[in-house]
Each structure stands twice: as structure tokens, then as C-alpha cells.
């Protein structure tokens, strides 16, 4: 049904210098779905080879499962309409580090060499994308701003 381009890089721990809290919120995070495309999509060479990405083919995934993982997490606001949490790149992500996810899939995701550019989920699979969909935790804006 869909092929997901997942983000594998963790800016909060791997980027130097470390981005600010606001930047970390706004940048894609590990496991975030960068984009979803139909089965058989012709990916670009960098999408297939860049160590920051993974392509997960999910033949059984429904569009309704994927759509929430393509939307940002909007800020929460106080009574005066001032944001109390940061806008984030995505509100949900498929948690491939979840304990239900088979080890081979986790190993594939951790392989920065991208020896296997795509991973095709068998159908049926032990878990579904919907089952490992996880909400991003809000990132609170510190009082007085970030220091």
C-alpha cells in the first residue's frame, strides 16, 4: 500500500554542534516518516543510499494508518494563546525500536551502511504499522525561553 521513507538520524545526539531545543523539535527525529509514497515508487539515489534514511515497504498498511504520521505536532497554547510547547516535525511515528518489532527489522534499521536499501514487511506481519504508531512527547518551552 505504501513505502515509507523513515528518518534514522538523531539530531539531538548525533549532530554537532547540538541543535537548540527548538531546532530539535522542528527537525525530523529518528523513526519519523519523512514521506509516504505508493508501492513501487522510484526513489532517488540519495533516498536509497543516504545513511540518514530508510525505506520501509508496508504492503499491508492503510492510508489512514500512515496519514497521522505525516502531520506535525502543533504547539499547545496557554490562555493568552502563547505556545507552551514547541511545534514538532511529526506528531506520531512508527516506533521501530518497539519490543514487538522483530530483531531483524531493528537490525536493518540500525544499519547505516544501507546494505539493504529497502525492507519489505512480510504480509501478514507480526506487527502492523498501526500497532507501533507512537505519539511524540511534547517538548515544553522553558519559562523565559531557551538558554
Amino acid at each position, binding site marked *: 500500500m505504501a513505502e515509507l*521513507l523513515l*528518518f534514522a538520524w538523531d*539530531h539531538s545526539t548525533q*549532530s*554537532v*554542534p547540538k*541543535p537548540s531545543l*527548538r*531546532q*530539535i*523539535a*522542528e*527537525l*525530523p527525529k529518528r523513526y519519523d516518516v*519523512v*514521506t509516504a*509514497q505508493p508501492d513501487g*515508487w*522510484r*526513489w*532517488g*539515489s*540519495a*533516498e536509497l543510499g*543516504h545513511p*540518514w*534514511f530508510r525505506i520501509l515497504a508496508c504492503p499491508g498498511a492503510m492510508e489512514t494508518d500512515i*496519514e497521522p504520521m*505525516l*502531520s*506535525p505536532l502543533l504547539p499547545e497554547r496557554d490562555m493568552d494563546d502563547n505556545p507552551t510547547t514547541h*511545534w514538532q*516535525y511529526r506528531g506520531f511515528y512508527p516506533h521501530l525500536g518497539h519490543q514487538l518489532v522483530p530483531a531483524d527489522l531493528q537490525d536493518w534499521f540500525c544499519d547505516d551502511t544501507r546494505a539493504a536499501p529497502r525492507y519489505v514487511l512480510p504480509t501478514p506481519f507480526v506487527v502492523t504499522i498501526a500497532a507501533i504508531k507512537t505519539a511524540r512527547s511534547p517538548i515544553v518551552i522553558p519559562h523565559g525561553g531557551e538558554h
Partner: protein
Amino acid sequence: MPTVVKTIGSGGGRDYSTLAAWAASLPANLVTDGNSYEGDCYNDSEFTGSATLLTLSGHTTDASHTITLTTGPGQSFRDNANVQTNALNYSSSNGVGINSSVAYAGTISITDSNVFLSNLQIKNTGSHGRVLISEGTSLSIVMDDCIFVKTGTSAYVVAVSGGGQKIRNSLLLAAGSGISYILAGSLSTGVGMPDLYFCDLVAASDVGTPPIEAIHCVYSSSTVENCAIFGCAALSGGSTTITFTSCMTDLASPPAGVTGSKTYAKQFQNTTAASGDFREKAGADLQGSGTADGTNGATDIAGTARPQGGHWDIGCWELLISVTIVAADAWMPIALLPTQRVDQPVRIELIATQRGDLRTPLESLTILRSDRGLRVEDSSGVARDTAGRIEWAAQAVTEWRAATEWPTLLLRNLAATGEFTAALAWGAPISPEWMEAIATLLSADAVLQVDWSGLPASVLVSLDRLLTSPGKRRRLDTPGRLRLLKPL
């Protein structure tokens, strides 16, 4: 600073197939990374989706480490071979198009600073969607030569605020009903709205509910220069101090710097939602009414150099002055009464390039052929409209003189009516008793045929009064200078 250029498109051999992936590949900190980044889009297929297609957020940039999204060579609507005749509106068949149906969000969302967009067509079809959102504190976002079209209902075409932002030579079109504003900016304290140069901010003339205001912004100040603002219920709202310079609108009683009460339909080829074509019309009030600004408007949205014929047009489109001469098939002979008796019949062909802007010199090419094998070319005809009339004096070879009177208004309406009237007069030392002038008049757009059917089949023109002056220039600004005697 080096620039890392990547290709984006669905065709084979591209680096990225999606805008989102290219954006996600950018380093968090471009300054420490030491590079600028450029994404070159290819029109392998339309970039489409139901979510935001490009998000640029969280990156550290500065004036030397920037992010650019543009088109690859030959991929923009601006590069299209038919850019002069293609409708000026969103069409992915003309070049790279980015189109999302996302609602309550933007097709493109930017909070990064030092971002440059150019040559793109961007569209949003979602309810409450925006074509582009850049609200916040992002600085120095510059959008050049883009088409922004929103067809869904409500919200804004673009929501842009920050500092040092500019939109130049771009079309911002509200083609849906109930869109609140074409440009919403400066909605938060401390942030401004972009400066606008040579832009069309237009709403389709047949939408149910036009935008409440073309521009709505609350804080700070802004410059709006050489912009055409048509089809909205009001020009602007909010408390932002906007300095308008050489702008034009259909609204009555606009603020200083905006000329009002201009007819919308007279300015553009087509103003409807379904068939909108926002190329400037020949004879539009926009033509030649702008202010010179080579910094922000050296070329128009179609790549035409400004100024044309010394004139700066308002809006994103600059009417071409010179055109390619094409063979016209609408012509007729005009018999001329000479001032001197001659022995040999001579045939004259007059080719006049109607350049679309009659306040600039016309070019002409005169070819004289006779049965004695004589051939004289004169390409020095000059025409000027200095007071609502045409002056055309010949600076011809030796003793040639030429004169004609072209009704200015008919000429200016040429593109609309396809009609044209003219009288021609030529004389020469060896002029024949009867000369045949074949005039081939070419329209500014090089696609309109001149319709001579309104003229008599043939007319006689008295040259005696025309050729009495020894000077090379004659001004024909009073009726009757060219006296039509009688039909043959």
C-alpha cells in the same frame, strides 16, 4: 561559500524523488557545515500529495549559508518555449509544479531563515490551506518569479511574516471562494510582513466571495512597489504601515501610491477562476505605469528584461516591445497619388513591426522593388506617440519620405479587436505615377492577424501635403493630413 546542489524529481537519476526527503537531508547547522544547499526541481511529474510537501525548519543558516529551492535547467514554467503565449497561471505542464490538497496547513512551510525560492509554481487546493506558510521569526526569505495559486476555500494564499522577506515578480492568485486574504503577514508582535515588488495580487473575478483584503497585516511596516492588486473587496487591513509606490487597483479611493478605479478585465488576458490568464494585456493601464527598480525587477516573471522601450510595467508581467517578425497574410494594396511624374512602376512593401507599446519607436522596413531591378531598403522609420497621436517620420535613404497616421486607440486595442486602420504615403524622386504599397503590419504578440477588412478595397492618398516639407520628420497630429481622395 560552496553550494551543495541536489536534483529532485521522480525521474530516473535524481538524487531525491520528494521535496521532503531533500529537506530532511539538510544538516541542522549549515554554518558549521560550511555549505549552502540548493534543491533543483525537475518536472518529471507534478509534486503532489495531501500533506505539506516541504518543511524547512530547525536549520541554522546565515547570509552566506543559505537554502535554495529552485528548478533545474529548462524545468521552470519560465523556461517553457511558449512562455510568452502560455496562460500565466498554475500549470504543471508548463514547468515544475508543487500541488497539495492539505487543509489547515501549507503546501510549503518555512520557519528557517535565509531561504530562497524561485521559478516555482506552488498550489494549494485544501480548505483553509495555504500555498505557503512562513509565520514566525524567520528572516530573509526571498521568493522570486513564482506562481502561488490557492483554489480551496478560506484562509490565505500565502501567510508570510518575519523580517527582511521579499516576494518579487510573482503571481499570487486567489482562485477559490471565501479566501480571507491573499497575503497575511505580520500577525505577531515584532515581526513584519514581506516587501512586495512587481507582484500581481489578484482574485479571480468570478469567485463567489472575493478576499476581504488583498493584504492583511498588523504590525511593523512594509513596502509594496509596482504591484497590481485586483479583485479584492479591500486593498489592505491591519495596522502595518504600508508604503505603496506605483501600484494599481480596481478599487476606488485607494491610499497614496496606488492608482485606483482601473478596469480589472482591461489589465489581464483572462481573470476567471477556470481560465485565468494573468499575462498583461496590450494597452493595459499597468503598462508603463511602474517605477524604475532594477534591483527588484530586472526581469519579469517570464524572463523578459525590464524595462521594455524605457517603460516599467506594474505587476509581474512586462509586455514585450520587440517581436519576431512573421509573415502576415493579411494585407492589401493601397494606391498612392504621387507628387512627381515618374516613368517606371515601382512597388513598395512596407513592413512595420507593431511593437505593442506605441510610446516607443516603431521599427519599419521598407523594400522598394521596381521593374528596373531597383531595391532600396529603409529601416529607419520612427514613430512616436507624444500626445496621444502617432508621429511617424521617415529618416529614410536619401530623399525618401514616409508618413502615416495610425489611430492610436485602434492600435492599442489591436490585440482585443483585431482591427486596424492606417493610411500610408510614400514618395521618391523616381516615384511612379501610381505606386502600390503593400503594408504588412504585425501585431505585438505576433499571433494576431491584422484585419484590413474594415478598409475600402483600395484608397488614394494625396501626397502633396505630406511631402511639401523638406524635413525628414513630419508630425501628423491633426486630422486630414492624410487625405483620402476616393476609392479606385
